[in-house]
């Protein structure tokens, strides 16, 4: 946040809306199941999962990815050369009173960054990162003029105001807070997309849900791979498929299946990067996804398609994070860990930014 004199209008608005300082509680009162529901609020409705894409649903079996040494040595076609991740650190900073009800305001420091694989080195390309500090607010019931003045006042502090109307203004403050935080998450995804689309022909690994990033028709042909570490949603409903998932050995994958969402259809599969004794059977497994359009255009012959998925899986497993000191080593790729490290070094301290904003609001 830049050190400019704060706008007196900020204090005036804070007084008018009875703003009070706020901080995040030490625990998250919202359950995980509700978290998944809340994450879907912005339109990631899954329309269908087709498990018979690579193998018949009843014929699922583990697919070894490292069985063919020659293919392993050759690597995948369109081996990814760019790795993108985003990061958002948010903090509740205030609660406004709108129409007699508490409305949370969330400050977020967010960013997205890319690293290019140059030989065996990871190098940040020119124009390779985006950083923002934003204040998120659900705008239901707030006059446009007040929002404009709030935005102008925040701009003087180097903070962007991000507002959105929620479909249902529930009374549950925690639900509202979660929805407000989602605005920050969306902005982070926007930053990731900016970087991703800046080089649409470069094969890229994106950390997170690919289907949330590739939401346009044109983007369906991009050579992008999404890597999901935390499995919030269950796509395999068949009990035998779940068991197969848990029994995967390191380097094995499930057969590919289709996930159709509102904006994108992706070919997805699970890959076990690692297995650690004493941890749940699901740990060490990541879900990978590529756009169906890209995969089928590039590899029209099904066998080549499956070979490509295996080669890609083996190649990505070669990039797994091997540093046991890293808490999520078992489900992480080293290039993505490096992206996280660089982002962490670039992002400002959210606590300090929150304190400055609260001073500017006079709360």
């Amino acid at each position, binding site marked *: 946040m830049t050190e400019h004199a704060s706008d007196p209008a900020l204090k005036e608005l804070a007084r008018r809306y009875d703003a009070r300082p706020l901080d995040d509680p030490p625990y998250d009162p919202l359950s995980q199941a509700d978290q998944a529901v809340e994450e879907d609020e912005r339109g990631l409705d899954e329309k269908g999962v087709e498990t018979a894409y690579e193998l018949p649903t009843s014929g699922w079996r583990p697919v070894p990815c490292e069985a063919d040494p020659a293919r392993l040595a050759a690597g995948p076609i369109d081996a990814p050369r760019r790795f993108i991740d985003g990061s958002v650190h948010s903090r509740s900073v205030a609660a406004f009173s709108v129409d007699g009800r508490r409305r949370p305001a969330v400050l977020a420091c967010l960013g997205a960054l890319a690293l290019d*694989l140059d030989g*065996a*080195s990871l190098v940040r390309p*020119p124009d390779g990162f985006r*950083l923002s500090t934003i204040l998120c607010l659900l705008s239901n019931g707030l006059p446009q003029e007040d929002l404009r003045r709030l935005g102008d006042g925040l*701009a003087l502090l180097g903070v962007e105001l991000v507002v959105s109307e929620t479909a249902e203004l529930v009374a549950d403050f925690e639900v509202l807070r979660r929805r407000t935080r989602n605005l920050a998450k969306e902005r982070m995804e926007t930053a990731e997309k900016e970087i991703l689309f800046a080089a649409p022909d470069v094969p890229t690994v994106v950390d997170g849900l690919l289907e949330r990033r590739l939401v346009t028709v044109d983007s369906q042909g991009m050579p992008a791979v999404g890597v999901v570490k935390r499995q919030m949603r269950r796509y395999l409903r068949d009990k035998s498929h779940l068991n197969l998932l848990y029994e995967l050995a390191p380097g094995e994958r499930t057969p590919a299946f289709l996930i159709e969402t509102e904006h994108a259809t992706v070919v997805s599969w699970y890959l076990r990067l690692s297995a650690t004794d004493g941890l749940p059977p699901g740990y060490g497994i990541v879900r990978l996804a590529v756009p169906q359009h890209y995969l089928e255009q590039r590899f029209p012959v099904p066998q080549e398609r499956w070979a490509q998925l295996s080669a890609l899986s083996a190649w990505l497993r070669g990039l797994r994070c091997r540093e046991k000191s890293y808490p999520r080593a078992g489900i992480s790729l080293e290039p993505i860990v*490096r992206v996280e490290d660089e982002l962490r070094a670039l992002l400002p301290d959210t606590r300090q930014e929150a304190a400055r904003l609260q001073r500017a609001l006079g709360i």
Partner: protein
Amino acid sequence: MDESSSDGRRDGSKEPAEAAEAASGLQPVGRVGAPQGAEATSAQFHFWVPEDRLVEKTQLVHLESAIGSDKAQFYGLVTEVFRRSRRSDMLEESDRFDGRPEEQVPLESRGVTYASVQVLATDPSVFTPPREESVVFPAGEPEARIAYGVGEMEKPLIVGLVRNGGEAVAGPAYVDLDYLLGAKGGHLNVAGIAGVGTKSSLLTIVLSQVLRYCRRHAEEQPEDPEKPQARAVILNVKGFDLFWLDRWSRAFTEEDRRMWEAMGCSDVAPLDVLGFFAPQQPGSDELAAPVGRSGVRPYSWSLEDVIRDNLFVYLFSDSDREDDNFALLLADIERLLAREWRQNDGTPMRELRRDAPARTFQELFDWFERSLARGEGREGEEPPRRSDLAFERLQSVHHAGTVRRFYRRLRRIVYESAGIFRMDGGGSHPLDISQLEAGRPVVVDIQSLPDRHLQRFVVAALLKQAVEQQTGAGALPGMHYLFVLDELNRFAPRGHTDPITQLIETVAAELRSRGVILLGAQQQASLVSPRVVENASVRVLGRTGGHELRQDVFSFLPEELRDYVEQLGASDKVLHLPSFRQPMHVRVPRPPWAMRKQEASPEPPEFLAATAAPVPSPARRLEPRPYDEQP
């Protein structure tokens, strides 16, 4: 600097260091980092180094940093370079390759190299740390001059080249002559292991440069009534190594010559030595020991010389002097021998009394023998002489044992002097440096003297002359006496209180402003009187052992440089002046003159043959025969 738009967005499209790089023409070697645990201070900071750049220990660097609302330039010396990987322990390092060195991993490690820097200077002078993320650049000669304050030196003297990393140099290494010749400080002390430290080379190089400075000053300012002049005495303490300084060195190479040229000395040549002196043989005018060259003159003292030059007290060692009875007897005997008076200008004078009981050492011994025999009833028929009465007075005051002991000591000293004390009056050649031609050193051998105490006596005799010259009415403005003396631990040992040690301590502590300057060396400074070592304004370290470096006498050396000093090469030195915030790393060239007989040559090296003249052989009696007449 990244652009920050009004909505708080920043992107990574700008390279902040490009402007600084374009301005300086240099590629940066990193940026300052100051994380917790590696904070920057006013004396030191760290900077990280990109993968494709090289930074070396002993390299010089500089940077510009914001300080408060202003900017400052920082100049520093890299004292250590670190490399850190991303792994938390060695087990992870091994796990990365599954414990197999031949295993390949797709991504290289990308740890970080970072360097620790000691601040040498800031401009303006501020005592504050540089800011993190300041861009760091490699330093060259201009920055080295600022870092070591060459601009503030009124009389800069080049003694080598500033080391700037492994092999590179950053221009000439300057010391301020005012810190050597007495204006702001005085004396030079070199410490280093024998054979590797190359202390003598450095001492002779410094001497040569001082004499060169004096010559140049005289040429440029002949009318200056206080132009600096130097009478230089080089004491030879090992073999006859320093008796070949007027010869070319066969070991002198083209590379050495280039180094001298980089120091601004294109006209390298052996030292222009005025004369060589060695102990005289007993009962003869010849040298006591074969030197292996011609043109060496003998030196010795008679009793008359010893009394006149006030050296009598130096004949006796520390252990003798600690005995009060002995010391009193010594004083009484000296009173019997010496007459003192002052000239009109206040200069104290001494001479052997006309009525002294003896005029030679032999007579003195005869006097003791006769008098002691008389005391024992063995006097024979001869009537007592007046001098015998003087002896009786001595015996009445001093214990007979003390008197006998004095006689035994004196006899041993003179008999074992190998000729430097003449038994009879004639044929002595006392060393007199007060009339030496300024600008041309003399070499005096003391190593061939059999007794260490005698060696100390000679050093004391010479120093005393210099002290009396420079503190008396006859002191010449601008004149300096420079003494090159190795093995200082022999001449001013730690913990000793004898007159010779005290004389050297007085020279070190009090006489630099009078122009009596010690260019001293030793292997272990911790064995030398602290007053002598600590009063040297110019301290030089060659390769030195770890145990020695931990002594208090090396407190000026930063801890992180100790390992480095333990492994210094023969041509490398660490040099410290009071005006330096950190020691300077110096590369010292090989001198063009021979440092021992084996490398001595009358002819210059081939690559210099066209420009340099051979050394003329001294005392040439015959004209060389034409070539066709030679056998």
